[in-house]
Every structure is written in structure tokens, then in C-alpha cells.
């Protein structure tokens, strides 16, 4: 008499427990800033290996342009750029990692596009790098433009819009081509270097990384066409306006500092500046940090520990690095580029 009843009860209890455990999992009520502060660090999704953007140096420390964006946010929150845990993500899982809360910021050369913004439950921060998809071919093939690539085999990676852009570019020109798609970026590069493909395609910034890896970079030429717009922007979940403001203004602080000529080296002198906007930005005047839920010195801490946008660019991607990229569209609006920070007032 006792046994069956207790059996039923046990079943019912375990069912309820199971349901409770499942429903407890995807909580999102608490603000991201509180979670991050309590945890003591930011979880930042980055590329596993992308020279210039995200890579581990010879001491195992993660460096790069994308990494510095997370370091800037960390400096704004903790007054320390290194309260970041980096989560290497490949292209296939990166957005799910943001959606599920596995990372707080995804700073991983992601293109900001309509469907991603509107249908994935994601928000994008300011564009940190204006990129575009390009093609690279061995110089011995003597290819002068992408329009000559009829019947060529082209190596690419999945999990991006690369394949679609290629089709959008070639279809109106009535050019047939063979696509060879690799999951693994090592296989992808090797297939190209070994001549399985006549051309390789990805964002131009990434082409520079591929070229930098080649035994002899001079054997490869990047073709002149930019076949798509790829505004790269850090990505966050769509449920937290405050977190979005913190990300936005951390990036704007980098750009704003360059506009005002504030650098890592001279930021302390600028604390005495008479310019009211610099005073507001660096927390000398006004309560701008408090409005974001941060310390008033947030932007000062960013510039002091990471530098301004120009310094971040030059350190990781600039002409003196292996990638050797020029600023191009990633120049300040005052110098003919597209970078523009809203006013600090």
C-alpha cells in the first residue's frame, strides 16, 4: 500500500524538481553590470587566432585590437584593463554564446547587419572597424581584378556572410566559380597556399592576417575590389540598455580621446585642461560616470590603460605591425575617415 503511493509521489517530486531546475537556468533579470561587478570580471568572446585582432603572444597573454575593446570596457568598470576572461569562439557559435549569456561582450570581428540586429536578439555597439570583403590571389596568376576570376576555385570559411557576398558579387556579372568551404581556418589557409584554390576570400583585415602568415607574403596580392560592406562592431544581448550605453561610450571615449589629442602618455596633463568637454569626459567636472553606473574617472581609466583609438589601431594593426594596415576609412571624420563620436555633454 505504501510503496506505490510513495512511488507516485517520488515521480511527481522529481518531475517538479526537474522542471524547476530547467526554468531556473536562463535567468536574465539581473543587470549585466551588476553580474559583471559581482563576478569581478568581464567575459569577452574573441577569435581563437586572428593576428592583429586576437591572439596569444609568446607569454600566453591575449592581445589584439578586439581584445583592447574589452580591455577598455574593463578599465571603465574596474579601473583595471585586465579584469577580463577571454572566451575563444569560432564563427559558428559566437552569437549563441552571446544569446545564452556565456559571454558579456562579443568582440570578434563581427559584421553588423540587418538580420543579425533584428532577428537574433542582439544589439551592436559602435562600429570599431570599417571593413569589407576582399579577395587575394597568388601574384603568379597575374589577376588584376576579381572580375577575371571566371571558373576559378575560391577558398572560404563558413559561418559568415562571405559565401553570400561572393554570390551577390558574381551573379550579376554572370561569373561561374567553384567554392571550397572549410570549417577549420588552418585547412582553409593551407588549401589556398597549396594551390587547391586560385583565390581566397574573407574580410580585408583578415586577408592581411592570412598574408602575414604566408611563408613569403610578397607572393600574394590582395585584389582591388571590396565586394561588401563589413562594419565590425562589438555585440551584446538586446535586453540591457545600460550595458549597451557602457559599451557604446567606452568605444566613444577611445574615439573622443583621439579627437581631442588625449593619449595614454599625456592624459594626466589633460586633467588640468581648460576645455570643458575634456573636463566632462575625464571626470574632472560633472557626474558623467555616475549616469552610466560607473566611476566618474571611467574614461580617464580607459585612456590611461588602453590609450586612444589611434594608439589601439597603431599598436595592433598599423603600418609598423606585421599586418601593416593603413587607417583608410578608420580615420577620424576630421581627417576624412568615418570615425565620429557623439559629444560628451
Amino acid at each position, binding site marked *: 500500500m505504501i510503496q506505490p503511493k510513495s512511488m507516485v509521489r517520488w515521480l511527481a517530486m522529481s518531475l517538479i524538481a526537474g522542471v524547476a531546475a*530547467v526554468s531556473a537556468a536562463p535567468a536574465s533579470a539581473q543587470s549585466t553590470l551588476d553580474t559583471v561587478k559581482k563576478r569581478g570580471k568581464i567575459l569577452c568572446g574573441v577569435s581563437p587566432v586572428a593576428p592583429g585582432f586576437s591572439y596569444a603572444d609568446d607569454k600566453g597573454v591575449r592581445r589584439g585590437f578586439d581584445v583592447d575593446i574589452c580591455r577598455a570596457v574593463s578599465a571603465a568598470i574596474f579601473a583595471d584593463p585586465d579584469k577580463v576572461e577571454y572566451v575563444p569562439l569560432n564563427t559558428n557559435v559566437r552569437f549563441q554564446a552571446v544569446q545564452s549569456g556565456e559571454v558579456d561582450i562579443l568582440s570578434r570581428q563581427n559584421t553588423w547587419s540587418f538580420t543579425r540586429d533584428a532577428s537574433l*536578439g542582439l544589439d551592436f555597439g559602435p562600429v570599431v572597424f570599417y571593413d569589407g570583403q576582399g579577395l587575394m590571389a597568388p601574384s603568379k596568376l597575374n589577376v588584376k581584378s576579381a572580375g577575371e576570376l571566371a571558373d576559378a576555385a575560391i577558398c572560404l570559411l*563558413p*559561418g559568415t556572410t562571405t559565401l553570400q557576398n561572393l554570390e551577390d558579387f558574381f551573379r550579376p556579372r554572370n561569373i561561374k566559380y567553384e567554392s571550397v568551404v572549410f570549417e577549420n581556418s588552418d*585547412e582553409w589557409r593551407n588549401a589556398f597556399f597549396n594551390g587547391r584554390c586560385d583565390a581566397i576570400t574573407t574580410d580585408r583585415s583578415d586577408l592581411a592576417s592570412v598574408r602575414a602568415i604566408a611563408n613569403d607574403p610578397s607572393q600574394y596580392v590582395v585584389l582591388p575590389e571590396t565586394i561588401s560592406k563589413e562594419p565590425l562592431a562589438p555585440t551584446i544581448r538586446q535586453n540591457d540598455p545600460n550595458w549597451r550605453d557602457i559599451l557604446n561610450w567606452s568605444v566613444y571615449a577611445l574615439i573622443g580621446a583621439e579627437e581631442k589629442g588625449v593619449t595614454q602618455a599625456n592624459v594626466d596633463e589633460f586633467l588640468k585642461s581648460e576645455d570643458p568637454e575634456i573636463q566632462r569626459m575625464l571626470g574632472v567636472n560633472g557626474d558623467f560616470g555616475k549616469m552610466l553606473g560607473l566611476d566618474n574617472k571611467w574614461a580617464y581609466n580607459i585612456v590611461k590603460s588602453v590609450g586612444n583609438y589611434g594608439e589601439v589601431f597603431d599598436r595592433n594593426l598599423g603600418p609598423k605591425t606585421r599586418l601593416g594596415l593603413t587607417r583608410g576609412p578608420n580615420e577620424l571624420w576630421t581627417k576624412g575617415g568615418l570615425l565620429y563620436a557623439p559629444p560628451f555633454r
Partner: protein
Amino acid sequence: MRAEAMSGTSLLYNLRFRAILYQVIAVAGIVLLGLYLFSNVSQKLAEQNIATGFGYLSREAGFVISQTLIDYKPTDTYGRAILAGIVNTVWVSAWSVVLATVIGLFVGIARLSRNPLLAFLAFLYVEALRNVPLLLYLFLWYALIVTGLPGVREAWEVMPHVFLSNSGLTVPSLVWSGAHTTVLLALVLGGILAVVFHRRATAERIRTGQARTMWPWIALAVLLPPALALLIAQPDLAVDLPEKGRFRLTGGAQLRPEFTALLVGLALSASAGIAEIVRSGILSVRKGQWEAARALGLRDGSTMRLVVLPQALRVIIPPLTSSYLSLFKNSSLAIAIGYPDLVMVSNTTMNQTGQAIEGIAIFMLVYLGLSIMISVFMNWYNSRVALKER
């Protein structure tokens, strides 16, 4: 007993009732949990503004798939792209199964050979292939092809118009038309006719004890339908010859390195397992059967073919089914070396649409469905070869 079952309190003591009750509760629990998970996921997705549903399957895919068996253009839908991926998966798996079975059979028999060198080589083959992860072999075969063979512009012309390069093997091909299909169908029909003839002749021989010369009839059955079809349909014999273009070889038919590496990798790895299964099957047949066959005057080859293997099949088929299933599922490693199988096409789809849950659901269902079909077929075959007790 009946009175007891009628009264409410003692119903719980009824073993049969209790057994059913537990099952009902268990099933209800699982269904409720499933429903809960489903509604939970849909609700969270809606809260996070993530698009759901299978509507995307009818939208334009907009990406190329380079090797497809069915017609596919980038202007087709995501649904058709996924179908092309499924067909590719089935295609490479089917060839791998055939190749693995043939190699496995011979290696398994070689393992038991009385020639020590042959037995040792077979042993090495099996151990080398089954003790290293398949993925590493795939990388190895692919790297061998891509780095070992010359580039496409230096392609090696093995025979006139047959080119071998690191972009694959390119051979001349017929310009296919409806007439060719007719001839092909006629050829299949001829084959079927020949088999029917042969069976009837064998039955006749067993019944009457007299063997009649049948081969002219069988030859006629094979040749007549295609010959007629050739005369009537008159297929055009135009051949598409591969030529060196600026980048690639254009024209002809191509066996691509991605397909080849995957086929070889899957087939060789599975063949090692199959060899061991075959060996265990042969060892399970008692020595007395060999001796009896020899006493009847059968040679070794005939003994193996007519006496031992049919009995060994009973032991071989069940584990062979598992080998086929794992081979089929392992084909999803294709993505590592660039063969556009179901997983690769689904991944591209998921990344363009962002609808990962639906994408994964589709490919899980497809793998499940096809695996079950393989199991059902193999179980049917197993029951056919099983020992018939008369």
C-alpha cells in the same frame, strides 16, 4: 480475484494495473517535460526577439554549393540547399559502405590466411587504421592529395584528356541527354532479365537434374534491350573534353579531392572494423564444417564461399549494422575538409538565418531517420540469413 480487482483499494495491488499505471505516469512525465521544454524555449526565444519557425526554408539561399548531385542554384531555397546536402551525405556514405565492405571482407579473410606475411600485413592494416581517430586520417588523406599532387595548371595528364591534380581527377564525360537515360534503363532491364533467366535455369537443373546450356540466352538477355534502345533512341555520342582554362580545367567530369579524401577516410577506417567482424564471424564457424567441406572435395575458395561465409553471416550482420551506422554518422566530419554534406550546408544556413535550433533539429531528424532506415534494412537482411529452424 475478480471481486478484488473491482474494489477500489485493492486495485493498486493488481500487478497488471500497477504495471500499466507506472508506464502511463512515466510516459505522461516525459511528454509533460518535453512540452515544458518546448514552450520554455519558444517563450525565451520570443522574449529575446530571436526569430523562430521553419519559414526560412522557402527563402532564397543565395550561396553556392560546388558539388551537388541534384540540380541546385544559389537562387534556390534553403530547403533545396539542405536537400542537396542530404543527397551528398547519402552519396558519400553509400560509396564508403560498399568500399569498406569489400575491403573489410578481403582483409578479414587475409587476417586468417595461412601465409604469415599476408596475415601480418592484414594485422598491421587493421591496427593502424582502427587505432587513430578518423578526423586525423581525413586531414592526412586530404593533405596528401592537396600537397602531394601538382597544382591544376601543372596538372598531370595521365592519359590523353585525363588530368590528375590537387583539384582532383578530371575525365572526359558524355554530354548527357534523355536518350542516354533510356539506354541506361535498358541496361538495367537486361541485367534483371539475366538474373531471372539464371534463377529459372538453376531451379530447372535442380528439379530435373539436367544442365542445359543457358549462357547464350543470358547473354542475349543482357545485350538485347540496350542494343534495341541504342537503335531506337540513337543517343548523341558527343564527349565533353576537359581543357586547361586560365584557372581550372573546364569541361569533363571531376572527382574532387574533398570527396575522394572523405570517401577514402571513411571507407578505410570502417574497413578495419569490418575486417575484425568478418574474422570473428569466420572463426565462429566450427572446424568440422571446413573438414566436412574438404571431405566433399571442395577447394579452399569454394569452402569459404559456399560453406563458411553463409554461416558466418549470422554472426557478422548485427555488428556490421553498427559499423554502417557509425560510418554514416562519421560522414558529418566532412565539414573539416570542405565536402558540402548536410552538416556544412546546415551550418551555412544557420549562420545566414541565425536559426540554430531549427537547423540542428533538421539535421538530427535526418540523421535519425536515415540511421533507422539503415537499421531496418539490415535487420530485415539479418532475419533472412538467420538460421532457419525447420
